[in-house]
């Protein structure tokens, strides 16, 4: 092999080392683009899921909806203040897995006028958005109007700016 041929082989080797690196990066980039596209395709707006989960808070007696003790009739949209406790939330309404529950929806419910707030077991004060509902609250003094703020924590980590949205669909008045 003469000197020119040796030089040619060395040149090509360097070329293919660089080309191999670039081609690998291109293929990895292509795969990442496809994976991101697929994730975007299957992403559901978290507000939608949160809205459906939070229906229970105001509508069923196992959560906080008022139920007449005598007739057993349930009044959706009327919150019984006696039931509105963290213990009830965890024991009979909504509880996430103690270890993996931070990866799903968690909530802080706040009755704005009453100034009472309760949380689910994996709520770490990292809300992403707030749902608002007009409700009635029943306490020892009778029934009064209030607003239920549902601060929603999506999977942690979840990178999105906090948004305060009015997504009320279950107004009771």
């Amino acid at each position, binding site marked *: 092999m003469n000197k020119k041929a040796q030089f040619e082989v060395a040149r*090509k080797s360097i070329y*293919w080392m660089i*080309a*191999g690196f670039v*081609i690998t990066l*291109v*293929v990895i980039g*292509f*795969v990442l683009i*496809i994976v991101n596209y*697929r994730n975007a*395709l*299957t992403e*559901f707006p978290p507000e*939608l*899921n949160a809205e*459906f*989960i*939070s*229906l*229970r808070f105001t*509508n*069923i*007696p*196992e*959560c906080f*909806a008022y139920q007449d003790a005598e007739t057993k009739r*349930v009044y*959706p949209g009327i919150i019984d203040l006696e039931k509105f406790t963290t213990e009830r939330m965890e*024991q*009979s*309404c*909504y*509880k*996430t*897995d103690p270890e*993996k529950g931070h990866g*799903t929806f968690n909530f802080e419910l706040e009755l704005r006028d009453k100034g009472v707030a309760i949380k689910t077991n994996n709520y770490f004060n990292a809300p992403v958005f707030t749902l608002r509902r007009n409700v009635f609250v029943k306490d020892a003094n009778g029934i009064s109007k209030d607003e239920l703020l549902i601060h929603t924590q999506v999977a942690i980590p979840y990178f999105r700016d906090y948004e305060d949205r009015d997504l009320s669909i279950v107004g009771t008045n």
Partner: protein
Amino acid sequence: MVIFEILAVILVIFVTFSVATEFAGSTNTQKTFFAEDIRMMINTLIGTPGDASIEYPQDISGYTLLLNSEEIIVLEDVKEGTDEFPVHRYISLPYDHSASGSVTKTDTLCIEKQYKRITLKPCT
């Protein structure tokens, strides 16, 4: 050297097409849609006082759906063995509620809530 270069180009094209083909043939997207839809339907049923029933307005043939009190599992019906990549979705039920049921080899799906019991079953 030229042969080596041609082989390298063929290899890159092959890898790129393999990735694209796998993506096109994947049913993960469809399984995720089913699982999310069913989770939202179950959460709606839970949030509804009293009994109710929903018919899922999509053809689910080719898939198996399982429901228990903790999660929804969607699998593709494969010729041999079981689907290696099932889609799971977590659900949280209120006190005294339970969920169960499965559908396979059918194209219709109904979800029923009857006295705090949520059942996944083929529509009749």
